[in-house]
């Protein structure tokens, strides 16, 4: 169903943000754009939940945010993932794989 985007599944946003930042530091909008691109335009981050998620991740020490200026001189924050964030990403990926695998079995059954 190309063209139709999916809202991000509850509980997976952390993984997506950490994954998006795994490549390099990004600002908020770029993160949502990166997630869209990485998911081949399928996953649409509900922007409203992006910023609270960024704050939450920052509070947990998984990412850091730094004030910066855009090319046009606009104020923005650049986020980068920390060592703890990268470890967390690995954990999240494991959990997700287990979950997705289980889902696969359930769907394939019968």
């Amino acid at each position: 169903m190309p063209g139709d985007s999916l809202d991000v599944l509850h509980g997976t946003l952390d993984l997506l943000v950490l994954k998006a930042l795994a490549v390099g530091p990004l600002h908020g909008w770029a993160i949502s754009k990166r997630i869209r691109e990485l998911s081949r335009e399928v996953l649409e981050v509900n922007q409203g939940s992006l910023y609270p998620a960024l704050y939450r991740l920052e509070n947990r020490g998984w990412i850091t945010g730094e004030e910066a200026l855009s090319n046009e001189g606009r104020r923005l924050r650049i986020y980068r993932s920390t060592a703890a964030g990268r470890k967390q990403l690995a954990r999240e990926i494991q959990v997700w794989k287990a979950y997705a695998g289980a889902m696969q079995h359930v769907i394939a059954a019968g």
Partner: protein
Amino acid sequence: MSALSNVWVRLRQLVAPPAGNDAEGLLDAEMRYHVDCETKDRIARGMSPAEARRTALRDFGGVDRYKEEVRDLSAARWIDEMADDTRFTLRVLRRNPGYTAAAAITFALGIGLTTAVFSVVYGVVLRPLPYADPERLVAVWETHRARGRDANVVSVPNFESWRAANRSFDDLAAIVPAPATLGGEMPERVQGAEVTARFFAVLGARPVLGRGFSDADATEGRSNIVLLSDGLWRRRFGGSDSIVGRTISLDGRPFTVIGVMPRDFVPPKIGWLSDQDLWLPFVPNEQNRGWGRFLVVIGRLKDDASIATAQRDMASVAERIVSDEGRNTGWSARVVSLAGEMTGEVRRPLLIMLGAVGLLLLLAITNVGSLTVDHIRRRHPELALRRALGASAGRVVRQVMTHCLVLGVIGAVIGIGTAVIGTAALVAMLPPEMPRGGAVRVDGTVLATSVSVALFAILMLGVIAARRGIVGERDGTLAIREAAGRTTGRAGAGGLVIGEVAIGVVLASIAGLMVQSFINLRDVNLGFDPSGVITARIQLPAESYESPASQRAFFDRLGRQVGALPGVEAVSFATTRPFACCAPATSVTLQPLKSDSATADVRYVDSAFFAALRVPSRAGRIFASAESPDGDVNAVVDETLARKLTAGRLSIGNRVTIGLSGGIDATVIGIVGDVHQADVRSVPRGAVYLSAARFPSTVRDIIVRGRGRPEDLVPGMRRELESLDPAVALAQVTTLHDAVGASIARDRFTATILGLFAMVAIILAMVGIYGVFAADVSARRKEIGLRMALGASPGAILGLLVARGATLAVAGAVIGVIAGVLLSRSMSALVFGLQTSDPGSFASVAALLVGVAMAATLVPAIRAAKVDPMEALRSGA
């Protein structure tokens, strides 16, 4: 980790609010940038600019809503949460009126009583004296080690020598009480004092109207001048400014008013000084230099002098008086702080009271704490649920802290109300002679202290409760399951019981000592019978009763007329009734001049004195009703003096020399029983009675024994006095019973207050222990049910709980007795007629508290024994 960084982020935002605002601004900019980027992106994908902007904004949602959500995590949320928690706490408190009332009232009681007692202690002991640089003010006494005098009043020559020779004082001043009859339409006895010219300057006090005394007054011989107190000025002269320069009559002589002291001037009440309504100049002269020791001396230390250096200086000055002037052998001088002197005797009992009320506060906090812990325990499932639903541990702790804070504020508000009422009640109960009673009030300092006490209490409470409130970092559902059957925290509960019993024992044993001491004082055989006796002082105006014959005639007639009143049994006139202030004492020597000499009180009494006071005669006779006004002097001595002079071999007819007015030789005509002359505590030191007829005076105490209520005789006495001379006033009217009572009023006060505290403490301990055990039993319902299901009998369950209560109570009692014994050591100067380590009283108090604790255990224990095992096991979780 996450909680820590949370706190860090918030701290940063709190300590740097501009950065916080900036963070907000940054958030704003960031989101706007997001929308702009999104808009551009959509334009790039082919939307019209307007369409792109509209949809980007729509998809983003209201910018503000998300800002709100983000802000949630920042400092501003704390305040919102606080308000939420407060509202929530109020709801919880409203839903649990029993718990709320018990906790708030206990809290208020603790804070209120502490503040009230502190206000008294502060006013009397701690508040600086109302003089300029009060810490430099001292009193200087004469001392005589051999006679055991450590604060003797001072003779005029010594005062003059001290003043001339010392190097430690800016100045020394002297004051001596001088009661007088203030003439006018209503003659009135007033408390006056004679002061040396520099007296007010030493205190740093100045008249508010007119002028003070000057050295010129003394050198130019102006002695008929007077300074009025604010009180007397307002009461008798309407507070009129024209008083300065007016002439008033004192003891029938004219005095010119030169000034009025300010309203807030408090005369120093030390030694034998009482309240003062007016001041007259005291000028040393040949006459008063021979009067012996009677001056109260105060001084102001030089800036470079301390009490210790002044003491050394004065000791050497006193030595030089002995060596250079060849007089004053055996006497030295002692320098003490004026503040200490003004509050010396009451300092210790008041500090003990403060300590006691502190313990009471501790008990109250403990009780509120145990009530709250139990309350929190019952809320454990709820708190665990909150944790499970995602509330952080910090959030739950904050909620519990808010709970305590709200409770504390309610308690503090009621407590401060209680404090104001309590202070008023305490002031009303203060013994009349309590120094500086007027300085007791609830003011800023006292309130600040009580608020800090309240804050401290809240903090303690919060710490106790919060420790219980944390369900921990564990999995929420596990916590819920565990919380319902939770039996932990028993060690803490045991500690509470031990603490409550121990504090109860300490308070009750200290109170017990004071009460027993007061009873001992009350039961002292005074040597006379104070019941049914009314006394008053009569001072004849000197100018109309100049001759001894006229004085004698007046008192004779008054005695006959009052004696004829219905209900009067006996009328006597004497200088100084028992328990009156300040009568002479001197040395009495057996003749021929042997070394046998003793200090004795001197009293001038008439023939009816011993009968009126029911003082028993031991040997010889008392004065005849027609004692000769001339010729040989007769003396009656008491048993103690007789024993001291000749080891009991003094016989009737012996001659003694009494060290008054250059030595009075007298024949001993009789021996009477010992009488407590001035107070209940001190053992009579010996007394010699001389005939009032032989030594007439314008001042007499009238002592009337009646058959009914002695107060009822007063109107008749006034009538008879007025019929003889309307210018003569009846002053210091009191029953002897009241006079004796007033002398032990301080002990009564201490005993009453401490007794009250002990009662409150026992009640608090009982309630607290009951609370702890009731909570314990309800928390262990399941365990008890299980035990019973496995075969334990109700009796065994009862025994188990009672034994646990008894063990804790005995442990508390042991700790309490040890603490009580240690504390009571500092009280040995206060108690009368018993040892502070009296084992009997400690044992009985300990037994009482253990009994109270057992009683408090019994009800929950019985309830436990009645637990239906099946029901208990089915219920819960």
